[in-house]
């Protein structure tokens, strides 16, 4: 559970910082792109809830898609390095990465037996992301910018 919350916050922070670096100054856009860096579901959900612009919502989906594809391709490559070979690390991994399609695809390429463990926590991640991003995290961003 800790890995899920940490995963959402870390991805959101990375996405938000990148958005800020690319010149987005308003809390709504930064939160939406940050949420998109979590998953491509959380991004548009957050953007719609906060009333972000169409361009920003599209960017958030794109960020989530890049993440999903990278996770799918990268998982089998980095699995030996990060010790991804048992159910416990698969659950932590699913919780940190979040993107359900990426995690399921990546784990299937690594070891199909690990898929259910990663997919379970990854599903939680989407729920927690949709809950945290438009609320606590958005308010935090707004506070930081003020």
């Amino acid at each position, binding site marked *: 559970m800790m890995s899920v919350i940490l*995963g959402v916050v*870390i991805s959101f922070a990375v996405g938000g910082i990148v958005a800020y670096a690319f010149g987005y100054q308003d809390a709504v856009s930064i939160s939406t792109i940050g949420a998109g860096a979590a998953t491509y*579901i959380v991004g548009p959900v957050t953007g719609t809830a906060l*009333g972000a612009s169409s361009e920003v919502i599209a960017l958030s989906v794109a*960020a989530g898609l890049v*993440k999903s594809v990278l996770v799918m391709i990268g998982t089998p490559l980095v699995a030996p390095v990060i010790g991804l070979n048992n159910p*416990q690390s698969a659950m932590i991994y699913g919780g940190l990465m979040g993107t359900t399609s990426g995690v399921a695809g990546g784990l299937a390429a690594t070891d199909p037996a690990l898929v259910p463990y990663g997919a379970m926590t990854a599903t939680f991640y989407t*729920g927690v992301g949709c809950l945290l991003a438009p609320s606590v995290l*958005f308010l935090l961003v707004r506070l930081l910018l003020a």
Partner: protein
Amino acid sequence: MIVYGVALLSFCMLFGVLVGDILGAFIGVKANVGGVGIAMLLLLVLSNLSSTRFSLKPLTESGIGFWSAMYIPIVVAMAAKQNVYAAVSSGGLALVAGTGAVVVSFALVPLLTRIAKRKE
């Protein structure tokens, strides 16, 4: 019946949206705060609770399964009606944001695994 699954799903959605709106009004943000997240977690809890109390019949589950299979086409449709041109023309933002999130998260996996092992 399949429609029971759909009903459960829509109940969770409506409940989540309602709570999200109330939360938004409470905090003073003109937005639905976390409604979809509340709905998703509620559905997860309800559909797992029921395995002990009143088991979900396979047909009921397929009412939920259909919509969970539909979510990728829905995301594609949502993305298709956004201003993709403006997003693409703003350069590598999506690429950098997506890649950054993946690299940092990958790096954290061994760290958290070690912490979890130490706890045992």
